[in-house]
């Protein structure tokens, strides 16, 4: 009888030790991961995005201070400024090109977004994970709006 109780006790002790080891290992891995992806080295940058020929009523939903998210709900950044101009149209007729802004229902937008990430040479990595090269098209969301925007440039905000 006593032997069984002793065995049960030592099995429970072993499980407890394994659980504690798992907790310590999990914490260590999280710390390593955080250091690896550069969260602790994050810096702020201003990302300039361009959106062409956006429906004007949709642009009206955007205001400075809006928070932008990626498709999976990851925080992307904060809209700090936007500039709207009538959408530019280029048409071709009989071999000649015409440039104008006839459609008053569409606008071209320039958005300035404050993001956090890591600089790596000419590259900027959002939260150290997602590369944000010039020319990349991003799908971003506010609470009400979906945007398909092209990265035009980025400027470091902190040194």
């Amino acid at each position: 009888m006593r032997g069984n109780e002793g065995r049960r006790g030592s099995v429970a002790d072993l499980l407890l030790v394994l659980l504690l080891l798992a907790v310590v290992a999990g914490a260590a891995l999280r710390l390593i991961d955080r250091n690896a992806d550069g969260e602790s080295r994050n810096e702020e940058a201003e990302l300039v995005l361009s959106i062409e020929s956006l429906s004007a009523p949709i642009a009206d939903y955007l205001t400075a201070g809006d928070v932008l998210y990626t498709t999976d709900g990851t925080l992307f950044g904060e809209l700090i400024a936007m500039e709207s101009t009538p959408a530019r149209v280029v048409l071709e007729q009989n071999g000649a090109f015409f440039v104008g802004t006839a459609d008053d229902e569409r606008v071209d937008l320039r958005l300035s977004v404050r993001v956090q990430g890591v600089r790596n040479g000419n590259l900027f990595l959002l939260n150290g994970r997602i590369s944000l090269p010039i020319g990349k098209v991003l799908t971003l969301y506010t609470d009400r709006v979906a945007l398909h925007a092209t990265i035009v440039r980025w400027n470091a905000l902190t040194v």
Partner: protein
Amino acid sequence: MTKHTRHGMTAVDWLLCALLAAGAMTLTWYALRARGADAKTATVSYTVRIAGADATLFDASPTISPGDAIFSENGTLPLGTVTELHTRPHRRTVVRDGEIQLADVPQRIDIDVTVSATGSYTAGLGWRISEIRIAAGEMGSFHIGAYYATQAEIIGVTVREASGNAGK
């Protein structure tokens, strides 16, 4: 030496039980959060623009009427009920007399269909109806009444009767 408490359990047994319970509660919390248990609900009204539809399809019979249901692309997910309908001539930019102008396209119309439904909000994931994200600027295909709209664009979203602080 192992010291037994009442019920024949040792202090280590109790500690192990407590750890396992804590682990189970953490897992449950994560699972509920992933399923949007903290989502808020409200009446969501949104407008879908069908641009350049064939006007003749709407002449003969009421292809879309207020009260009609709207469904997702595959026709299985309900996305609300039509509350309003507005049509106008479809316009395009053309070159006329050497200048870019807007011109009506014959036999083509734009239809703005306003729809109302109960949606749920989750921070970062926005408003959803039947798990479909409703955001201005999203393009998609919808079954609206007797009509199938391809590449229609959501041009407006309004939230009413929001519970909590999700609806602005």
